[in-house]
């Protein structure tokens, strides 16, 4: 973070093009040489209702949303307009302006559409402007858009206006528009962009200091979301089959895959429910294709039985779980990290599965690939656990990050030549589930392979796959399946999947998992700058858990604060369970109001935890160490 960061928020109604406008804005800034990061907020409503996206841009890498924001573009909510007297959504008209003021920083810039928003509806607006030293630019964006094109183009007018105020070269926007718009709408949009830009420059006297920072990249960047990188990781790892059923926010991955797979000769199936979806992925995988499925909490709950079958039958499969705030349908469009225990332990019996939780958009690509490598290399289900935040946020990543070889390797399978020498039971049944397999991994044959037929069953079975309840067989098979997790642990240790932050030696630790990693990283830096001695770790391996690495980390600090987005401290609980100690060293900073942490909240929470102060925002909760 530098002092010259831009935190631009565009607000309006759902369906008003907020997402696409902000995406282009972020891309324009990335092309201008900046590092960008977006944070999306939207209601579970298709048209209307307050929604915003924040674009944070800086010359230094940005890893998180910022603390509040410093520039607001408030468009009208076209679906809240002209409400009938007493209409249900009648008081929403002014929301894109009113709702955002609480988080606008001192000295911030406001541009709003006077064509649709009446600032007089906001109580004490003038006083607040003065108090916070805001710089306000009321512009009739609606009228400009109408006069030069169509009313829906007021987004473009808004972008032109902020570009003028912040000093952004219009060429970046023009190029992006030219790449995505058909000729008929490109021309009026360009005109609106320029008209508003020039008009603002001419008619307003700029009272604010905020200007877009300058920056440059050493290499080409791309702007992607976590949903993009998960899908791309899967494709690069040779996944050519997906089955799913829509549920926010998993739908994003499903959509990207459904559009990409037919182009590479893959298959996507939207099916009747999530049980079917997971079962289809198992069927395709069994028949020799790299396959995935996924859902969000409630849909994943339905998958728990096929998941157990995958474990018992050792059918490789990758499931993605996109967390949103629960229980039940919860907050459908808001992030939370409260499905951790659900994915670790759902389904009957002892769990033999891999659970990985990527910490950033870039990491999600690697871990999506890793999930396939582990699933197919060890014939085990692997779950990629992420949340609505990572799924929907955009971040710039060097394009070279994706410049890697595809890996279609099907993992632990036999060839027909190997099948000839492999042990077979009476009747010619291949011994698919051998007791003496290295690392517990007994290779599978694929239907259609000569001399490879065997029986898969969800019941306990003997080496040929026949149902077998003999106690010795049971113990041998249970132990063999479990031993794969030890082998996977070793493999993951070599990969170095956890992310360490801050100095090697420090008095205090910040621990987190999944999507809060970037925010914690920023908090670690700020705390050290402020004179604290803090290091951090973002953990991505949920199962098998990195016992050694975490033991070392915790032994090296006096105290540690676990940061996670849920109310029960699930990751802290997992850490204590896996390590069997450190209960007295671990305290929790929790947030579960539907919004991810801001770095300042972690800084404040940390200070509270070591100095015994109150956590300032009632939105976050501090839970002291056990025994305190």
């Amino acid at each position: 973070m530098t002092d010259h960061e831009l935190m631009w928020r565009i607000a309006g109604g759902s369906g008003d093009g907020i997402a696409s406008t902000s995406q282009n804005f972020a891309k324009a800034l990335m092309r201008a040489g900046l590092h960008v990061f977006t944070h999306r907020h939207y209601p579970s409503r298709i048209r209307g209702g307050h929604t915003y996206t924040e674009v944070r841009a800086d010359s230094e890498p940005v890893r998180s949303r910022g603390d509040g924001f410093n520039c607001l573009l408030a468009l009208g909510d076209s679906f809240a307009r002209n409400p009938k007297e007493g209409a249900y959504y009648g008081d929403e008209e002014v929301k894109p302006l009113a709702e955002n003021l609480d988080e606008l920083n001192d000295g911030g810039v406001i541009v709003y559409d006077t064509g649709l928003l009446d600032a007089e509806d906001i109580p004490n607006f003038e006083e607040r402007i003065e108090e916070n030293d805001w710089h306000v630019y009321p512009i009739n964006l609606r009228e400009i858009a109408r006069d030069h094109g169509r009313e829906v183009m007021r987004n473009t007018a808004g972008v032109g206006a902020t570009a003028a105020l912040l000093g952004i070269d219009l060429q970046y926007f023009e190029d992006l528009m030219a790449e995505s718009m058909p000729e008929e709408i490109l021309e009026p949009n360009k005109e609106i962009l320029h008209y508003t830009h020039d008009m603002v420059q001419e008619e307003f006297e700029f009272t604010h200091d905020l200007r877009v920072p300058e920056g440059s990249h050493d290499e080409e960047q791309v702007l992607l979301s976590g949903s993009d990188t998960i899908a791309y990781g899967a494709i690069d790892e040779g996944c050519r089959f997906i089955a799913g059923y829509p549920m926010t926010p998993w739908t994003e991955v499903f959509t990207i895959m459904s559009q990409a797979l037919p182009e590479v000769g893959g298959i996507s199936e939207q099916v009747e429910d999530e049980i079917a979806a997971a079962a289809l992925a198992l069927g395709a995988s069994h028949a020799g294709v790299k396959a995935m499925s996924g859902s969000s909490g409630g849909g994943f709950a339905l998958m728990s039985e096929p998941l157990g079958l995958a474990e018992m039958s050792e059918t490789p499969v990758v499931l993605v779980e996109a967390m949103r705030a629960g229980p039940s349908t919860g907050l459908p469009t808001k992030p939370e990290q409260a499905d951790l225990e659900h994915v670790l332990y759902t389904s009957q019996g002892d769990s033999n599965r891999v659970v990985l939780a990527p910490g950033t958009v870039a990491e999600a690509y690697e871990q999506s690939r890793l999930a396939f490598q582990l699933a197919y290399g060890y014939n085990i289900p692997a779950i990629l656990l992420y949340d609505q935040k990572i799924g929907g946020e955009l971040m710039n990543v060097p394009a070279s990050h994706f410049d890697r070889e595809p890996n279609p390797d099907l993992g632990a399978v036999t060839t027909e030549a190997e099948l000839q020498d492999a042990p077979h039971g009476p009747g010619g049944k291949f011994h698919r589930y051998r007791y003496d397999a290295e690392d517990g991994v007994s290779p599978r044959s694929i239907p259609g392979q000569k001399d490879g037929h065997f029986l898969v069953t969800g019941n306990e079975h003997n080496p040929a796959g026949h149902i077998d309840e003999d106690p010795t067989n049971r113990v041998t098979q249970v132990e063999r399946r479990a031993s794969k997790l030890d082998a996977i642990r070793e493999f993951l240790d070599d990969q170095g999947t956890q992310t360490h932050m801050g100095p090697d030696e420090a008095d205090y630790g910040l621990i987190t998992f999944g999507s809060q990693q970037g925010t914690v990283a920023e908090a670690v830096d700020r705390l050290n700058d402020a004179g604290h001695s803090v290091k951090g770790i973002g953990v991505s391996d949920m199962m098998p858990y990195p016992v050694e690495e975490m033991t070392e980390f915790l032994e090296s600090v006096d105290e540690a604060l676990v940061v996670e987005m849920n109310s029960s401290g699930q990751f802290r609980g997992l850490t204590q369970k896996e390590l069997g100690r450190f209960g007295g060293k671990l305290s929790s900073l929790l947030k579960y109001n539907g919004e991810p942490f801001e770095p300042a909240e972690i800084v404040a929470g940390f200070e509270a935890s070591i100095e015994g102060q109150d956590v300032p925002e009632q939105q976050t909760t501090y839970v002291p160490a056990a025994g305190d």
Partner: protein
Amino acid sequence: MSAFSAIGEEREIDREEFTPTLEPQATWCPGCGDFGVLKALKQAMPEIGRNPDEVLLVTGIGCSGKLNSYFECYGYHSIHGRSLPIARAAKLANPELEVIAAGGDGDGYGIGGNHFMHTARENHDMTYIVFDNEIFGLTKGQTSPTSPKGHKSKTQPHGSAKDPIRPLSLALTSGASYVARTAAVNPNQAKEILVEAMQHDGFAHVDFLTQCPTWNKDARQYVPYTDINDSDDYDFDPTNKTEAQAMASEAEQSLYEGEVLTGRFYVDADRPSYQEEKQAIGEMPEEPLAERYFDDDYEWERTHDMLLDRHK
């Protein structure tokens, strides 16, 4: 050489090949109708000219689900009600496999009812055999979706208040392109129908009446059946959907009234299979996907070349 050389291998298939040399632990009761399905399928299998390594038999849970313990071929004894989604994905992954799914009436019309409807609708090229004994066997005799109205069981002590599911009508309206009913008491007809069903290009549903002498002594499945296709009394055209529907609903009614009507109810040889439909719109490759993973010369695309431009 193909990675799946069992597929299409031309040779004389020995009847005994599908039969385990070592009988697995017999877990069906003496006199169970499931033996009738086993016998008919074992006779039918060699006739379609596929060898054990190119057949995938997916079952659900229940006494019926244990069918593949008695079979030599690729087998997948899955979970209650889910044989169809597993089977149809395997078929999409490798359309050259002979895919058969099987399970009980509880499995197929109860817990898996949704999948049944949708698999029929999609018209996957596969065979689905439902062991219809009008009872839950493995869980010890509870009422099933095909148990007649009024049927008493331990969990419905006052008799079922529900009308039974009409599986043939359901298959027909859902879109199955081959619908038949046969009975364990007639292995010859059963074999013939199974051969036809497996040779049919599309979703072939066979409601297979089986008896459960342990829990369901009242069911009509023991009664001599009438083969509607051979009977002058039931002259109808099974390629005409309206006539087929009328015949199917008559058979469904008469089953509970004492007359067991079996045979082919509907045959639509023209409807394209799901695979063909998907290939036609460019959503499925012509070559089996599964083959590709064994083809060293195949050029695997990567997102860096294909998709990254749009993010720049």
